[in-house]
C-alpha cells in the first residue's frame, strides 16, 4: 500500500489531499482547501500538509510520495511535480470514470484536456495570454454587483434575456457591465451573459481538442457554478460537441487528487525499477 499526498497550488486556493493506494483501490483519507488571500503559498502548503497528516493520524515518514501540481513547482518538501493538465485528467477519472475530457476553469487560464479511460492525456489546449473571460473577471464583476460567489450560479439560471458581453478585453468588458447596470439590465441577465461569453471561450477549447467521447468533467472551483455549467452545456450543444459537461461536489480537488494518484503510481513504478533515489 502506498500513501501519497497531492498538493495543488492554485492562484486562489491550495488544495491538499491524502490518499492510500492499494493496486486499483484508492482510499481518500484527508483533505484541505485553503484560500490563499495574500498569504505565502509555500507556508500555507506546508501547513496544509501538516494538517492532512494530522487528520489521517500519520507521520511525515509514512508518506511515500508527495506530488505537487499547479504552481507548486518549487515547493521544497515535495517528491515530484506533475503539470496540472496531467493531474486534472487523472482526478477527473477518479471522480467520474465516464470522463474523457476535462475543462478546468482557473482564476486566469482555462484548460481543456482530452484523455483516455486511464487518465492518459491525449491532447489539450490552454487559453492564451489575454485574460478575457477568466474566473478572476467573474469574481470582480460579482463583487461589483454585490453577489456572493455561491449565489452566482443560481442567479444566472434565472436569466430570461441574457445580455451580450462582447468585449474581447476583460477590462473593457468590466465597463460594458457597468453600462449594463446603468441601462437597467438585471443581474441574472448580466451574469448569464458573462457566463455565456466565458463558456464560448472555454468550449472553443473543447472543440479544438475534439472532445467527443464520454462526459466532459468540469474541474476547479468554478465547476461548482451551476450557471456556468448550464452555459457550457448550451454552448456545447450549439457548437455540436457531442459530450455533456458534468461536475462533482469535489471538482475543486481534481488536481490534487490526480497528483496524489500519479504520485503513488510513480512511486510504485520507481520502486519496481529500484530507482527510488530519483524520486526524492
Amino acid at each position: 500500500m502506498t500513501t501519497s499526498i497531492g498538493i495543488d497550488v492554485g492562484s486562489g486556493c491550495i488544495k491538499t489531499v491524502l490518499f492510500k493506494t492499494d493496486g486499483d483501490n484508492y482510499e481518500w483519507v484527508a483533505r484541505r482547501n485553503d484560500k490563499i488571500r495574500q498569504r505565502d503559498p509555500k507556508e500555507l502548503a506546508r501547513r496544509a500538509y501538516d494538517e492532512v497528516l494530522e487528520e489521517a493520524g500519520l507521520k511525515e515518514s509514512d508518506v511515500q510520495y508527495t506530488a505537487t501540481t499547479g504552481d507548486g513547482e518549487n515547493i521544497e518538501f515535495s517528491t515530484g511535480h506533475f503539470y496540472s493538465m496531467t493531474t486534472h485528467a487523472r482526478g477527473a477519472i477518479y471522480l467520474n470514470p465516464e470522463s474523457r475530457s476535462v475543462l478546468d476553469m482557473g482564476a486566469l487560464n482555462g484548460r481543456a484536456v482530452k484523455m483516455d479511460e486511464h487518465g492518459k492525456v491525449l491532447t489539450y489546449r490552454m487559453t492564451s495570454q489575454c485574460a478575457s473571460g477568466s474566473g478572476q473577471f467573474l469574481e470582480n464583476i460579482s463583487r461589483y454587483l454585490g453577489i456572493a460567489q455561491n449565489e452566482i450560479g443560481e442567479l444566472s439560471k434565472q436569466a430570461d434575456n441574457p445580455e451580450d458581453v462582447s468585449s474581447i478585453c476583460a477590462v473593457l468588458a468590466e465597463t460594458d457591465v457597468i453600462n449594463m447596470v446603468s441601462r437597467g439590465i438585471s443581474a441574472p441577465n448580466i451574469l448569464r451573459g458573462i457566463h455565456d461569453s466565458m463558456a464560448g471561450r472555454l468550449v472553443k477549447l473543447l472543440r479544438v481538442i475534439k472532445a467527443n467521447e464520454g462526459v466532459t468533467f468540469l474541474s476547479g472551483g468554478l465547476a461548482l457554478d451551476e450557471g456556468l455549467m448550464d452555459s457550457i452545456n448550451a454552448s456545447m450543444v450549439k457548437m455540436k460537441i457531442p459530450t455533456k459537461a458534468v461536475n462533482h461536489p469535489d471538482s475543486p480537488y481534481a488536481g490534487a487528487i490526480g497528483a496524489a494518484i500519479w504520485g503513488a503510481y510513480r512511486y510504485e513504478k520507481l520502486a519496481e525499477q529500484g530507482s527510488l533515489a530519483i524520486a526524492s
Partner: protein
Amino acid sequence: MKCYIGIDLGSTTTKAVVMDEKGEVLGRGITNSRSNYDTASRVAKLEAFISTRLTLFHRQLEGLAGLEGEKIDRLLFNLERHFRLELFLEQLEDLHQTCAENAGDLRYPGQKEKICGVLDVAFARLADKLQGLFGPGVVRKSDFFRDLAGSEYMNIAEETAKEMGMNFDTLINIYDKSIIEVENRPPNADMEGKFLRALTKVLEEETDLSVDPADVMEAIKKVLDLDLEETFVVGTGYGRVRLPFPKEHIRSEILCHGLGAHLMYPKTRTVLDIGGQDTKGIQIDDKGIVVNFQMNDRCAAGCGRYLGYIADEMNLGLHELGPMAMQATKTVRINSTCTVFAGAELRDRLSLGEKREDIMAGLHRAIILRAMSIISRSGGIDDEFTFTGGVAKNEAAVKQLRELVQENYGDVQINIDPDSIYTGALGGAEFARRAVEEA
C-alpha cells in the same frame, strides 16, 4: 449667482468643477463612478458645490476684521472636517440599516437576528474607529465613502465574526450588496443644516478667534443663502453619451482635457492623461486647441485600472501604491501590462524572490512606458508638458515619467497640478462658460 459647471464622467471617478462667469474656479468635487451615472454626476456636482460654498465662505470671512488668512483657513478646515464627519456618519448609518435589511435575504434563513446582532457590534466599532479619520491632521486613505468604510469593515468584520461565531463570507457578501445600494442613493440634501451644525461645533472649539462668533455665523449664513444657479453644464468623459444632457452640452474629453490643461498652464503643448481605462496623448496649440491626439487602442493594458487590480491584489489603497514603489532600490523589469494578469505577474515575481517594492517600481514603469508610446504616437513631447488624470496623483508614476521624459526628450518643463484629476472637468466648465458668456 451664475455658475458654470463641467462634469467629467470617467470610468473610475466622476469629477465636477464649478466656475464663475469670469472663469474663476469656485469648487471641485469628485466621487467614484458607479453604475448609476446620474447619481455619480449628481454626487460630483454636489461635492463641487460644497467646495464652492467653502470658497465663498472664505471670501466672505476675509471681510471680517480680526480674522486673517491663517485663522480663516483653520476655521474652514475644521468646519469642513465636522461637516464631512456628519455626512460620513449619516452614510455609515444608512449602510448599517441597509446591511440589516439585506440580512433578511432568503439565503440566510433564520439567521437574520444573529447577523443583525453581529452587524450592530461591528458597526458600532466601525463608527468608533472611523470617527478618528476625521480627527484634526489625519490623512485619509481615500476620498470616497466606499473605500473608507470598506477597508476597515473587512478588518472589523473578520474579527467580529470570529468572536461571535459568524461566517465571515456572509458578512462580506451582505456588505458588497449593501454598499452599492447606499452608493446609488442620492445623498441627503440638507447641506445647509450640516454646515450650520458643524459651524456651531467649530465655534465652540475655537475660543481664540478674536472675532464675534455671531458675525461669523452671519457671514456663513449669508453665503448659504446665496442661490447657486446652474447656468450651463457641459458633460464630458467616457460616460458622456450616457449623461442626461442634450448634444450641445456634451464635448469630447480630448477637447476638454486640452483646454483644461491650457487653463492651468497656458504654455502647455503636450498633455498626457492617464485615467482608469484610457491613456491619451494630446497636442495643443497656444490657445488650448487640440491639434493631435492618440489614445490606447482596444486593449486596456497599462491604464489606471491596472493599478486598481494591483491594489486589490495586495489589499492596499490606491494611495499607498506610489509610496511603496518609492521605497524600491531597483526596478524589476515587467513586460506584460495586461491589466488582468497584473496580479499573476506580481505573484510570479514574488515567488521568484523579488521584493515587493522593486516589483511595484517595475509595474509603475511599465505603465509609464506604455504612456510614453502613446505620446510618441501623438507626436512626441513639446515644451511645456502637463500630466493629468488620476495616475498623476501617484508619485512613483510621476517619478518614472520624469525619468523617461528626460531620457527621451531632454529638458522639458513638466507640470503636475495637485488638482490635475479635474482637468477634463475644468475644460468642460470653461466650454460651458464660453457657450454663454462668449456666445
